[in-house]
């Protein structure tokens, strides 16, 4: 019997497999950031051991950095200390750092791919659940906790049980105004925020393979939002074309050799998955979430479920969620006023996202009472946007183009949505308080977010494109 892509990569990275023990899996690339690494370095110090393979770990500062005036010292003392600790730890243990002010700095899941560090066939981990993003290249990539960050620093391996495999096939073509973010929000709304827990997902089908690399990253990024350990997409010509020539990508003879290997990375025709789900791209509308987990989503023209449609046991959590959101069961969201628009995060902050938004808003201006934050995923994305004049389009539209970081996706720095306010956001989580205490989040695509910025309310973007 043939193998899935996931199993091909996993099997080639198993260092030790013993009955009764999890597999010891070799990790090719480890990304770290300021928030989930300090305690891991402390652990190494306590054990008196070095980083085993320092060249395989790369660091950046993203979660807890300001997105204005990055050239100045960080004002908030605890945040400054945490970022300084990353600088100290990486220097002491010999790990490369792309810190604030470095031309490669940015959100960890944006910079890995854009620098050509993320490659097909790799195993990649990071102390961040959205590490699944890198799966878009045909890599096994997943988020880990700080104890596991310490394992990888100490041994370049991680102990893991092999997850089950799920195939998600999306057939056909997307309709106008529908983009990759809508595909993944649609899938999660169908299978719930825990529908893929215990599985590693492979996405395939025409609607997936026709996407650009950046759009594929958006899909894989949100795999964790349905509980999946990770999600990947088989590499193809689109993947190879994207990687070629990037800073750390293989060159010359190494490129030819790597390419030959990457072309073997696909699921064999007779391989078995534990679960197969099939969706049709034509069924997907622009999506929006109405609740406090990413599974609580719907097409923008649809209505929130009414209480009668729910099981008795689901009702308390559902009511709590809608109370938090200030929304009524059975109501629609079209025309609902929004206060903030956030375009950024490891889900949607790449140059294609910014181009998509700029194309849409060119010649338009934001609604008066809406605050619009555009937070590019990296210094390179920011520089490219300026080079293309996208910054001027945003300025004319009344949007604020800020500096790179995770920003209002997780409300860790000062970029928070005020209590009670509604934010339409291109990020990945609508949890209670995620964007700030009592802030209310509607997750949507960059296109839908841009439409809301212009009209000041939840809008069906198809009417404007």
């Amino acid at each position, binding site marked *: 019997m043939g193998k899935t892509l996931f199993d091909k990569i996993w099997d080639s990275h198993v260092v030790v497999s013993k009955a009764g023990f999890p597999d010891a899996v070799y990790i090719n690339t480890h990304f770290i950031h300021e928030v989930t690494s300090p305690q891991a370095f402390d652990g190494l110090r306590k054990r008196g051991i070095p980083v085993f393979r320092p060249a395989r770990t790369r660091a950046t500062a993203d979660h807890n950095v300001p997105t204005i005036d990055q050239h100045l010292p960080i004002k908030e003392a605890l945040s400054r200390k945490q970022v300084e600790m990353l600088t100290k730890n990486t220097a002491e243990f010999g790990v490369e750092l792309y810190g604030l002010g470095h031309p490669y700095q940015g959100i960890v899941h944006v910079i890995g791919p854009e620098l050509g560090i993320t490659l097909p066939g790799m195993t990649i981990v990071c102390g961040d659940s959205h590490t699944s993003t890198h799966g878009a290249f045909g890599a096994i990539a997943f988020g880990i906790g700080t104890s596991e960050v310490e*394992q990888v620093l100490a041994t370049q391996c991680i102990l893991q049980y092999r997850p089950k495999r799920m195939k998600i096939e999306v057939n056909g073509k997307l309709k106008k105004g529908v983009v990759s973010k809508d595909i993944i929000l649609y899938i999660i709304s169908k299978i719930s925020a825990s529908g893929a827990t215990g599985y590693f997902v492979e996405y395939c089908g025409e609607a997936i393979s026709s996407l650009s690399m950046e759009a594929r990253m958006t899909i894989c990024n949100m795999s964790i939002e349905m509980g999946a350990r990770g999600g990947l997409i088989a590499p193809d010509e689109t993947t190879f074309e994207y990687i070629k020539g990037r800073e750390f990508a293989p060159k010359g003879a190494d490129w030819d050799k790597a390419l030959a290997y990457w072309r073997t990375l696909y699921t064999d025709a007779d391989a078995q998955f534990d679960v197969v789900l099939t969706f049709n791209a034509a069924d997907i509308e622009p999506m929006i979430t109405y609740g406090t987990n990413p599974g609580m989503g719907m097409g923008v023209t649809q209505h929130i479920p009414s209480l009668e449609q729910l099981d008795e046991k689901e009702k308390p959590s559902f009511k709590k969620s809608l109370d938090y959101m200030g929304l009524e069961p059975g109501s629609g969201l079209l025309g609902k006023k929004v206060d903030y628009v956030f375009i950024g995060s490891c889900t949607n902050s790449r140059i294609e996202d910014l181009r998509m938004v700029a194309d849409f808003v060119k010649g338009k201006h934001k609604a008066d009472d809406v605050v619009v934050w555009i937070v590019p995923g990296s210094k390179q994305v920011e520089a490219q946007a300026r080079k293309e004049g996208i910054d001027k389009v945003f300025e004319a539209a009344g949007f604020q183009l800020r500096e790179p970081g995770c920003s209002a996706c997780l409300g860790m720095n000062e970029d928070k949505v005020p209590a009670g306010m509604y934010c339409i956001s291109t990020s990945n989580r609508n949890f209670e308080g995620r964007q700030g205490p009592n802030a209310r989040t509607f997750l949507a695509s960059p296109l839908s977010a841009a439409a809301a910025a212009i009209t000041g309310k939840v809008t069906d973007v198809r009417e404007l494109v």
Partner: protein
Amino acid sequence: MSKNFQHLVSSAVPIAIENIDTDQIIPARFLKATTREGFGENLFRDWRFDSDNQPKKDFVLNNPIYKGQILVAGKNFGCGSSREHAAWAIGDYGFKVVISSFFADIFKNNALNNFILPITVTDAFLDNIFKAIEADPAAQLEVDLEKQTLKIVATGETAQFDINPYKKACLINGYDDIDYLLSLRKEIETYESGREFNF
């Protein structure tokens, strides 16, 4: 946090909400510390305290009749962010066991790596636990890791739970994954030298 776990009899704190994510367990704005200690004071911060930092009376952790070293929660507990701070906060607050009918993968690993035992039970058994606590907030639960059993003491109802043998041994003996991985050094170096594509 004690570095092993074997047996526990305790009352439990019930939170019958589904999909409790790690942002609720510990909001991101409290992740700025660079040590593992002290996260318990911000456990469930925004459910426990209002915007003036006053305790919210209707939240279970602020109700003195509920206490104990066991947290019981609705399904899909610990979803969302991989922050291990969630496990640290739960442990620092004093919980040694979390019971739910379903756990998110990363949280489960993080809990085990901090010697906190996540116990998965059926939806029906979880309901019975909630009912037992509703009938008597001091209802005792008994956890026996060696036998892999969870008992509602008052009724004698007992559930068998799964845990992989490796993690069970780690918990009972106080080993951690790094001890084991460090013992594989030779195998790791052999693997590295034999790999054709070592990017």
